[in-house]
């Protein structure tokens, strides 16, 4: 028995970063908004408080803040010749669940992409000529430009209070910042976090090699801040429990700190938790959504009619929601046709470990998730790729995020994986090692995609999402090249031993890399190669908007959250100023 509820103006599926920002914008503009969240409510007090929030076994190992994969896993395979199997333990990437979404457990690294990232196909062809790329690479332009997004990046960073140092304000290069960044309209809202010792050593070495180190932009704040919504945030205490954890101090920017209190106080908004949305409902023409159907924790099924449906789920769940709902044509890798699930991409993470003598004291536990010093000299298209056979790059940084006892055990290559020799090595090296993160771009490729699994179903009987992914040759070449540069920096820091680990195939879901899954509901200007238009509106069902990193046609060299925040405000403006005044296609196909 399905209960049909009273129609509302807007239903938002997933009340994470995107959902809470958009719901707030639309509720404030007078629209009736219902937010459906499959997880539970949770706030800094009491849920995120010490000492419970520092339970490494619960949060690091047992992944307490993540999507429940006993009920809703994904399946995975490297290529179409394999049978995909369910991922029973999250390791490679960590999709969150609950109010505030995955942002509750993020590290706070808050980057912008560069101007050429948004026009990657065009700019690559211009600079390196046709035929530079492998034939199966399917990179494309975003349909939106950096200049269009700049005011929205700015708004997002000021919402979060991001701590950083500008490198380029309106074309003027700023000392101390990143000279490679695209122009920003003003300085960061708060100054950079303090530099830890590994960052200082990195800065010295990188400067000596002629590179351009700068402090990582961090949304773990360097000082108290009141955001434009009137919400106060505190200074980060460098406790080292960011990623995989929630912040106990109101110091890490999450929906709980920067928007939810304002949203929840608005009577135009209603939050419903424990609501597992099954699908977006379409009318008989399949060109208009009539609302959504969800099942609550008591097993009751509801239909929530709405004039506008916003799906603001974690990237892979956005893909699945469209596939379960029949919104957009599913991608077929054999024919290379169809769009939903196409251009699934990731992030190509490599590491460089530098081991020092015991008189070099690093104190790795004294960290925030986004403190650190890095260079962009080998990121994106900031260096000449002629003759290299790949595009893209990585930032290289001493961005050590924690020294937590269960998770952080740097040991040199050749150390046994267990036993006395391993223990001795951990004791010897724990406080005298620096790990660089080499945060690499990811090209989209014809063979990498997501679709519905033919075999496995979730706890509600719906097909799971199946991910088919292998690292493209382009990105493996990139990883090898950039890792060699990282090793040079490690040596220049005076490390006794430097071990570079460029990312290698095969991709495995059993090793943590990063929660930067992108693509699958790509944005663009051509309906034959994109799911949504430049305003993230479905080409097929114009009263459905799909917002997430699933819109990225390929992934850039930086953490994706800043760009997603900018896109969220970009869409908010399009909804308020264009769509809701005159519903229909914002871009004609």
């Amino acid at each position, binding site marked *: 028995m399905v209960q049909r509820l009273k129609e509302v103006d807007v239903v938002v599926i997933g009340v994470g970063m995107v959902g809470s920002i958009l719901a707030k914008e639309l509720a404030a503009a007078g629209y009736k908004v219902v937010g459906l969240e499959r997880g539970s409510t949770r*706030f*800094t*007090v*009491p849920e995120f*408080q*010490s*000492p419970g929030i520092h339970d490494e076994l619960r949060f690091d190992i047992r992944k307490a803040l993540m999507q429940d994969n006993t009920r809703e896993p994904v399946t995975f395979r490297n290529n179409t010749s394999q049978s995909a199997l369910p991922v029973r333990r999250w390791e490679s990437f960590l999709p969150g669940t609950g109010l505030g979404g995955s942002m509750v457990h993020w590290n706070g690294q808050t980057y912008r992409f560069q101007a050429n990232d948004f026009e990657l196909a065009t700019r690559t062809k211009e600079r390196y000529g046709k035929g530079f790329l492998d034939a199966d690479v399917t990179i494309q332009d975003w349909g939106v430009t950096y200049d269009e997004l700049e005011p929205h990046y700015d708004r997002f960073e000021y919402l979060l209070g991001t701590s950083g140092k500008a490198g380029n304000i309106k074309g003027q290069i700023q000392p101390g910042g990143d000279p490679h960044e695209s122009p920003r309209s003003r300085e960061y809202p708060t100054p950079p976090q303090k530099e830890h010792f590994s960052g200082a050593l990195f800065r010295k070495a990188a400067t000596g090699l002629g590179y351009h180190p700068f402090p990582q932009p961090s949304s773990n704040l*360097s*000082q*108290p801040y009141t955001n434009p919504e009137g*919400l*106060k945030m*505190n*200074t*980060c*205490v460098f406790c080292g429990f960011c990623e995989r954890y929630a912040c*106990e*101090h*109101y110091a890490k920017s999450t929906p709980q*700190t920067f928007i939810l*209190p304002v949203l929840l106080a608005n009577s135009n908004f209603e939050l419903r938790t424990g609501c597992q949305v099954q699908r977006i409902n379409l009318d008989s023409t399949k060109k208009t959504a009539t609302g959504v159907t969800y099942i609550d924790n008591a097993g009751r099924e509801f239909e929530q009619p709405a004039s506008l449906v916003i799906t603001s789920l974690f990237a892979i769940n956005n893909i699945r929601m469209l596939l379960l709902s029949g919104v957009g044509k599913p991608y077929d890798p054999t024919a290379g046709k169809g769009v939903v699930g196409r251009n699934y991409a990731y992030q190509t993470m490599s590491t460089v470990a530098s081991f020092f003598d015991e008189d070099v004291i690093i104190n790795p536990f004294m960290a925030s998730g986004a403190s650190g010093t890095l260079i962009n000299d080998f990121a994106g298209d900031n260096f000449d790729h002629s003759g290299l056979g790949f595009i893209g790059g990585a930032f290289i940084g001493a961005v050590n995020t924690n020294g937590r006892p269960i998770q952080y055990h740097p040991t040199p290559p050749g150390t046994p994986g267990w036993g006395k020799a391993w223990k001795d090595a951990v004791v010897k090296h724990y406080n005298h090692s620096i790990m660089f993160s080499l945060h690499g771009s990811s090209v989209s490729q014809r063979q990498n995609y997501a679709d519905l699994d033919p075999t496995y179903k979730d706890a509600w009987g719906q097909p799971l999402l199946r991910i088919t992914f292998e690292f493209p040759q382009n990105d493996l070449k990139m990883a090898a090249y950039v890792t060699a540069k990282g090793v040079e920096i490690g040596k220049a820091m005076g490390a006794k031993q430097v071990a570079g680990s460029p990312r290698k195939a095969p991709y495995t879901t059993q090793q943590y890399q990063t929660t930067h899954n992108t693509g699958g509901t790509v944005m663009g200007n051509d309906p034959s190669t994109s799911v949504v238009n430049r305003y993230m509106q479905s080409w097929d069902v114009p009263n459905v908007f799909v917002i997430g990193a699933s819109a990225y046609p390929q992934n850039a060299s930086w953490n994706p959250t800043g760009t997603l925040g900018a896109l969220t405000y970009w869409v908010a403006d399009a909804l308020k100023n264009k769509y809701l005044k005159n519903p229909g296609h914002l871009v004609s196909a």
Partner: protein
Amino acid sequence: MVILFGAGSAYAAAPPPEAATCLACHGPHGEGMVDGDKPRLAGQSAHYLDKQLQDFASGARDNAIMSAIAKGLNAQTRSKLTAYYASLPVPAPLKGTTPTAAQAARGHQLAQEGAEAKRVQACNNCHGPDGSGVALSAPALAGQLAPYLATQLKSWQQGGRKNDAGNLMSSVATRLDDADIAAVTSYYANLDASTPSTR
């Protein structure tokens, strides 16, 4: 005899002669004084006490009397005094400091859990389990005298005290009202952190 031995050994160290100045306000055993909001020093971490003396001297912590005294201390004397006070046993809470039931509940909430409506995190996040202090970063609050704690929270609110990292204490203190301050200070004052031998 055992009790006498225990008590005797706890007080065995004679105060350094420089402590004569301290005794007048902070009490013969570093127990503090309710009148005039003088804190208990006994059992507080030496690192914390030393930093406070330096901050009184530099002006980062505002107090006319302590500033004058601290300016007259060199590092060696500071070290001697702070080690002495850190070694003293913590006395039991003063009689008559019992909070009301409502204050105890609110104080316990602020200490252990925080207050979402005010965006105040739990005091114990930084001040340690049951406000027992974290040697190199945050002072013990348990068993500290309520009038002193209240004066400090007011001072953080008003900017007279600003000697912490990242303005954390002023962020928290400005979100507390007078009733919160009365509750949380009486809660901590009444927590028994006394050294076992003094019970």
